[in-house]
Each structure stands twice: as structure tokens, then as C-alpha cells.
């Protein structure tokens, strides 16, 4: 159907769809219009902005790396192993997708604060504290980012042609070789998509981070936290940082469009 036939035969569809597009486009446009373009380099060069940019880069990459390290085995287990309570485990893993991040932060506090279920032991035994540390920020980001990696890679593992794995095994390859030489290349697009999605989610994380790791400049004040707190003191810096986050998100969507968002 061409656009002119759409307008003629389904005017209501076209109208509602146009509303939806405007709903997304207008706020983005407002951000672009309000952006202090001429002072952008200066705003992004302020100490707070540079600290936040650096910290966000470090924490989001760490969270993405942790998501791969722990998420890949988990996704494989969910896709390939029949075990009791598998759907329960899957539900648990997906929970952070729908849980408000602040609630995630409160839950992390309950578990890993100095008075927490696990955190108290860590602190008593090793004097180790996660709250208000960069490690804590990484943890909060991983908590919300990991599910994105797991569902993407699990879907990749389920949809790949398993016969190639079986053939490799009958030809004498041991399970490790099969995984490395057959499975991984087959699910490479999902791996990339899952990692990028997890990274982008970690980059944008706010609620769990501020609740669990606090808001310390240079230690736990990531980009979204800086945007939120600079909004009154330094709105131009806040808008400049928002712009950075927006551009990054846009790049992620465009880069993933062919690999994941359209093909599946």
C-alpha cells in the first residue's frame, strides 16, 4: 500500500500513526532546539561533565562485559538444558526488564548493603563495601542490563540450526570445539546485538544506580545522574549531556537495525 492509498482508505490509521510518530519526535526535536550548540564543547568540557562521561564509559562497558561473562552461560543453559524450574529461572532473569529500576536498587540494598543479607558477611569478613563505590554502580547497571543480553542470545541459540552442531559432534569435535567453532559463529549477530543492547541499557541506567551506589562525583555519578542533578544548577550542561546520550542511543538503533530489529 502506498502512502496516498493509506491516506484515502485508512485515514484513521494514518492519523493515529502520525500521532505516535509526533509523540516521539517532538521531545527529541525540543532537545535539539534547546541545545546550546555554540557552547557545547565548553559544556561537555566542564569537570562534572568529563567525570560523568568517563565514569559512564567505564561502568557501562564493565556492565556489558559482565553481562557477556555471566549471561552467555545462562542463555546457553536456558536454551539447551532441560531442568526443573527452567521457566521460573527465566522469569527471574527477565524480572529486571519490567521492575522499576528504583525497586531494583532497593532490592540490591537489601542484599548487598553493609546491613544486607550478603553484604553484611562481605563487610564483616573482608571489610568489603559495594555501596557508594564504582563497583556498586557497575553492579546496579549489570542488574538491569543482563536480561537484555540473555533474552537476545537465548533467542539466537534457539533459532540457529542445531544440525550443524550435531554434524560437528559426529565428525569428532568435542563439545568445547563445537561451541567455539560452530555455535558461537552461528549466533554472532545475536551476541553483538545482545552486548550492544546491554551496554546501552547500562549507559542509561539511573534508578538502581542512584539508589544503590549513590551520587558521588567521579565515583558513582554517571551521565544520567549528572543530567538529573545538573538540571537546576547548570541546565546547559544537562542538555549537552542529554544530547550525548541521545546521539549514542540513535547510533545504537541504526547500527542494530539490520542485525536484529528488522531481521527477527
Amino acid at each position: 500500500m502506498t502512502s496516498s492509498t493509506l491516506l484515502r482508505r485508512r485515514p484513521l490509521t494514518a492519523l493515529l500513526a502520525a500521532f505516535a510518530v509526533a509523540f516521539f519526535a517532538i521531545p527529541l526535536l525540543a532537545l535539539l532546539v534547546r541545545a546550546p550548540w555554540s557552547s557545547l564543547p565548553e559544556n561537555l568540557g566542564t569537570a562534572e561533565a568529563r567525570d560523568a562521561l568517563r565514569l559512564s564509559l567505564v561502568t557501562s562497558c564493565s556492565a556489558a562485559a559482565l553481562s557477556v561473562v555471566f549471561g552467555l552461560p545462562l542463555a546457553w543453559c536456558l536454551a539447551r538444558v532441560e531442568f526443573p524450574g527452567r521457566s521460573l529461572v527465566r522469569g527471574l532473569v527477565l524480572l529486571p526488564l519490567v521492575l522499576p529500576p528504583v525497586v531494583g536498587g532497593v532490592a540490591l540494598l537489601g542484599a548487598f548493603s553493609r546491613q544486607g543479607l550478603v553484604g553484611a558477611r562481605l563487610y564483616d569478613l573482608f571489610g568489603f563495601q559495594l555501596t557508594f563505590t564504582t563497583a556498586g554502580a557497575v553492579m546496579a547497571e549489570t542488574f538491569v542490563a543482563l536480561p537484555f543480553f540473555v533474552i537476545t542470545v537465548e533467542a539466537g541459540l534457539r533459532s540457529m540450526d542445531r544440525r550443524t552442531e550435531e554434524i560437528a559432534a559426529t565428525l569428532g569435535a568435542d563439545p568445547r570445539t563445537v561451541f567455539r567453532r560452530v555455535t558461537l559463529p552461528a549466533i554472532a549477530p545475536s551476541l553483538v546485538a545482545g552486548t550492544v543492547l546491554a551496554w546501552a541499557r547500562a549507559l542509561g541506567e539511573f534508578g538502581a544506580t542512584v539508589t544503590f551506589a549513590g551520587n558521588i562525583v567521579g565515583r558513582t555519578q554517571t551521565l544520567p545522574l549528572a543530567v538529573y542533578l545538573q538540571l537546576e544548577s547548570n541546565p546547559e550542561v544537562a542538555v549537552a549531556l542529554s544530547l550525548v546520550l541521545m546521539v549514542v542511543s540513535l547510533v545504537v538503533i541504526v547500527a542494530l537495525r539490520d542485525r536484529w530489529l528488522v531481521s527477527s
Partner: protein
Amino acid sequence: MQGCNGPGSCVKGVATVLLAGLLLWGTTGCSSGDPSAEATGGPAAGSDGEVELTGTITVSAASSLSEAFADLAAEFSRLHPGVEAVTNFGSSARLAAQVRGGAPADLVAFADLASVQVLAEAGLVDTDGEPFATNELVIVTKPGNPLGIDSPAALAGATDAIVSLCAAEAPCGIYSAELLERAGVSIASDRVTRAQNATATLGAVSEGDADAAIVYRTDAMAAGDRVEVIEVTPGDSPTAEYVIAAVSGSANEPAARAFIDFVLSDRGRAVLAEAGFGPPS
């Protein structure tokens, strides 16, 4: 689209639901917004015995007023059954920015004069606000004060302690900066976690792992035994001056004025005093 029978029926179905929702919303909106719909006649139960007040008022108040104003709003609604007082709490600086940005508010109660002046400059309030309470700052630590923090200097000197402070622009952030300055100390920025408002600043100690915070006395009192309160030398703590003002162009100015009168009344003072607020200076 499999769930829909025939082309177009899905869109029509959705549109019908949307329209029905809009109509429903419209009618309920009317019944609560239209004064005559709920008023049953006769004088109000209010002590002033004047014209009956109706409708909704939105009260934007500093987060440190949360508990006192929740009580005051409930009591006000009992005195004026036709009025629903909706409260919106946050840092005064943020609330001022919201109101300036067009957020609906019929009256504001802020923890400093500067936030009201922001609105006055924008022509959104026509007074500098009516002073109605004062507050002071204290240091709070974990119960039992494990780090032995007994003064602002000790707070600055405890090099392992994470200190929770209000956002620098929030009134409580400005006051705590002044407190530290008067004490002649500063806290290294890599141990300072900044919270959005006064109550969140306290929460970092009472619920989280921050070792200490500089907070309002009233918030510290409300936290009970979840924190230990350390008084600062009189004179070190700046006095927070709370002011209340009606927002110009409020859709329900009579009710907003009545609420302000209620806060300034003896009963209002008593509720505030019970929460630990001092009388206006």
C-alpha cells in the same frame, strides 16, 4: 493482526476503546471538577463559616515538610470537605523550576526565600511569601555513632566516611554548605553523595550505607532511632526560613488562600511545632 477479523476492524476496535475512554474520563473529570456537582448546599464545616470552598488545590512543598503538610492537608480537607488538597513534595529549587516551567500548583511552601524569589521574578507569585516556620540543621550518623563523629570538623576529618548532602542547589544543600563554611571545614568531594532533596539525603543514612548526613532537625526527628542525632554548636547552623505563597493565576485562589490561613493559624503552628519546626522569626 491475526486476532482481528477483516481489514480495518482492529484499528476501529482500538479507536472505539480510546473514544470510550476519553468520554468516560471527560464525565468523571466533570463530576469532580464542577463545584455544583458535589456541593450539597449549606455552610461549610470550616471554622470561619464563610462561603463553602470546593475543588482541588495542588500544594507544592519542600520535602522536609512532607509529614507535617500531609497531616495539614488531611486536616484541611476535613475542615473543608469540598476541597481536595493534593501535595507534591520535592526540593524547593526543583519545585520552583517545575512551577516556572508550567507545572500546576496553587500554592508553594519552600524552605528558603530564594526559591520564592525565583517565582516572584517570573511573575508567578506576587509576594515574597509569608514566613511560617523555621528549621535547623543537625548531623546524623548510624545508630550508636560508630565513627565517633561529634562535630562538623570530625565529619570532615573522618576520611573513610561517606557523607550524604543535599543537591547543591536545593535549600538544604545551600544551608549545609553554609554550615560547613561557618565551621571552617570542607569535605572531600569523593566522599560526598548528593541526594535530590532533604528526605532523600537522610534516607542515604537511615536506609542506605552512608555514614553520616547533614539534615534538617525535623527530618532527623522523624527518622527516630534509625539514626543518631549530633547537635552542632549553636550559631554554626544557619536557620532555614520557610515561606508560603499563593501562585498567581491559580484556578482555585480562595481555597489556596484558606490553606495558607490554616497553616498560619494556631492549629497549623501546633502541627508544625509537633514535627519539630520552630516559630517563624
